[in-house]
């Protein structure tokens, strides 16, 4: 008998190691059945379980105990059992509950996407396009906070925060000393550095990367440009910091590097955390060794007019057989 556990998610069976969460099992399958995750971050221990967007239905507990779980469960914090059957997008109940969570996440969100630096690469934006309502049913004043400068490189815009706690985990686990956290309780709780002490640490900039919304933004990039006008390029440099390997994504506009971020995988998680020197100080092409254009999914708004766009050659326009062969690409170009 193998040690692997068999789990079926939306009819697709996969074998995973014991102790894997349902969400990570779904990520091994990939595609549409991966539940969205706003607060879970695989690189941060203890994260997850809070935003409730990744809820799924367990229709069969395990081979030994086939009873379904009574409630929808957070897939990021529920470990798989052998023979477990999970419904995600095949269950209307899950989709309804998820759209409820999205609505609830948005009721106090300012929806200021037009002036938000995160727009275009915002998890909440993607999530609400997919699951949200067009109109809110919330008719009360939204909660507001003052903007806070956390050090000279990071700004906290608490209005946009969805309290995923990721930045708290980053400060706990990656930097040496945590000086910020959650203050207050309930819907007036806020992320704050107590008495606004600056987060001063070599790795503090990573809070920007893990923030799923535009609550923590890079002050060196603020209002410089929209992400979909910039071109991401993978690059690296020899970083002196022992914990940073200097592998980053540079975001170009013309010949200028507008910002530097860590490299992100298909689930929006950074591959490796980078130090503040790489992120904030090195903004010249000469500092970096360019590797290749960053692969961006063709469904992302960032790729809308860069690399993946198919420009039909003149010969295709005249040749029917070639048109037929490139049908999908041609349809895509006509969309833009």
């Amino acid at each position, binding site marked *: 008998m193998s040690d692997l556990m068999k789990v079926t998610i939306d009819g697709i069976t996969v074998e995973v190691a014991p102790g894997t969460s349902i969400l990570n099992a779904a990520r091994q399958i990939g595609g549409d059945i991966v539940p969205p995750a706003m607060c879970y971050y695989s690189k941060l221990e203890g994260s*997850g*379980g*809070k*935003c*409730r967007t990744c*809820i799924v239905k367990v229709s069969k507990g395990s081979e030994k105990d086939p009873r379904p779980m009574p*409630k*929808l469960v*957070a897939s990021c*914090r529920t470990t798989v059992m052998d023979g477990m059957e999970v419904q995600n997008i095949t269950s209307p109940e899950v989709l309804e*509950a998820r759209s*409820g*969570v999205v*609505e*609830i*996440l948005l*009721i*106090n969100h300012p929806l200021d996407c037009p002036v938000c630096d995160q727009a275009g690469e915002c998890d909440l934006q993607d999530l609400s396009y997919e699951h949200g309502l067009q109109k809110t*049913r*919330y008719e*009360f004043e939204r909660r507001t906070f003052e903007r806070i400068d956390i050090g000279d490189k990071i700004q906290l815009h608490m209005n946009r925060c*969805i*309290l995923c*706690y990721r930045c708290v985990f980053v400060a706990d686990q990656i930097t040496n000393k945590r000086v910020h*956290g*959650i203050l*207050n*309780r*309930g*819907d*007036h*709780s806020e992320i704050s550095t107590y008495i606004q002490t600056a987060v001063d640490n070599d790795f503090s900039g990573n809070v920007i990367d893990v923030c799923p919304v535009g609550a923590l933004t890079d002050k060196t990039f603020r209002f410089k440009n929209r992400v979909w006008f910039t071109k991401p390029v993978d690059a690296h440099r020899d970083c002196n910091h022992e914990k940073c390997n200097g592998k980053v994504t540079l975001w170009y506009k013309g010949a200028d590097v507008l910002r530097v971020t860590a490299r992100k995988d298909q689930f929006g998680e950074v591959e490796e955390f980078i130090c503040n020197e790489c992120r904030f100080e090195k903004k010249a092409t000469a500092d970096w060794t360019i590797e290749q254009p960053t692969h961006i999914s063709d469904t992302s708004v960032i790729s809308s007019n860069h690399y993946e766009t198919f420009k039909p050659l003149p010969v295709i326009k005249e040749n029917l057989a070639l048109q037929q062969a490139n049908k999908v690409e041609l349809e895509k170009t006509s969309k833009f």
Partner: protein
Amino acid sequence: MGRKLLLEHINVPGINTLEVYRQKGGYRAVEKAIKTLTPDEIVEEVKKSGLRGRGGAGFPTGMKWSFLAKPEGVPRYLVCNADESEPGTFKDRYLMNYIPHALIEGMIVSSFALGANTSYIYVRGEMMPQIRILEKAIAEAKAAGFLGQNILGTGYNLELYVQPGGGAYICGEETALLESLEGKRGNPRIKPPFPAIAGLYGCPTVVNNVESIAAVVPIINDGGDEYAKIGIGRSTGTKLISASGNLVKPGVYEIELGLPVEEFIYSDEYCGGIANGKRLKATVAGGSSVPILPANLTLKYANGDPRLMSYESLSEGGFATGTMLGSGGFIAFDEDQCIVRNTWNFARFYHHESCGQCSPCREGTGWLEKVLHRLEYGHGKMSDIDLLVDVSKKIEGNTICPLGDAAAWPVASAIRHFRDEFEWHVKEPVKSLSSNYGLANYAVPIEKKVEEVKQDNL
């Protein structure tokens, strides 16, 4: 006259002192348990007694104890949950106030049964007088040799500490309580792992309500089988009920489970009826988080049989026509009370007490409160009523801890049973500010043997 196990000597002068408590047979259980029984035998007695958790969920205590992991070399803890803060529930405070040694005695026996050498009583921060009473009682017990090193010469050691909380309702949730006890922010943990495996400081821990622990004393004294004879069905023993609201004699009553609700409200032995000659409109049977019921469904099932004070009987009919025993906070509303205002008040409480960790509860409780506030103050719309139902459904079951459910149920049930009154608030915004909807048909007795009982908006 019902049997009293916990409050039998409550009126004896000086029962809060060790001396008088011992004269009335106190600490017999400690001697019996530590000297003659093994820990497993005690767990077995508690299992036999059928004692169910008195804090609200009603989980069998003996079973909870038997789930406790017992790895070698790792300390185990017993934590008493005295963070009683549910609106309408005040039984634990009463018990700790007047007969603190009952809790201490229960703690010693339970700690011995679980093999814990350090135990904590986590008391809500507002109960400062009770904390002092407990500390005094612990000092007395220690001086008499019931606590500390080598108890009664048996070689069993137990240190008992009282820890004041910060006064947050959420710290009554067992994992939030443990976080708070560890000195962290009182956020509920994500389960599994359950405290029985990894609780306080990552060690196996049992968290029990004050009343559950106190009830262990009569179980050990008289035996589990004797205890199981009291009560009805799977609801065994006696239960403290905190009766409040428009009653002639509100207060804490010890009842045998299985007492008819009607008798509890109207008999002179208990609440003595509704105050000022008014009529009963509605009740909340188990503290603010359980569904509210109109008077007719409080007294009878939907089929006309009388409802009893027990775990099963109160939840008969599910959420459609039933409620829950919960923590035993019995609140009665007379005909002059406004259900909308009361629902708003409960929603306000849960909004204030939500810890803010998971999104449905953090944002949803505030939303519920705002919409209910609007309805109560005459700015409501018809669509608000369905909105409330919808929002409460989005919260229920989608949160880490049961606070989300507790916030959603009162709202959903109030609308389920009192929709007329909510609609009246929308239709008569001015009148609803100065007068009340009144009794309407909420107390129309349910007749037996009626095929289709007419209920309000089911």
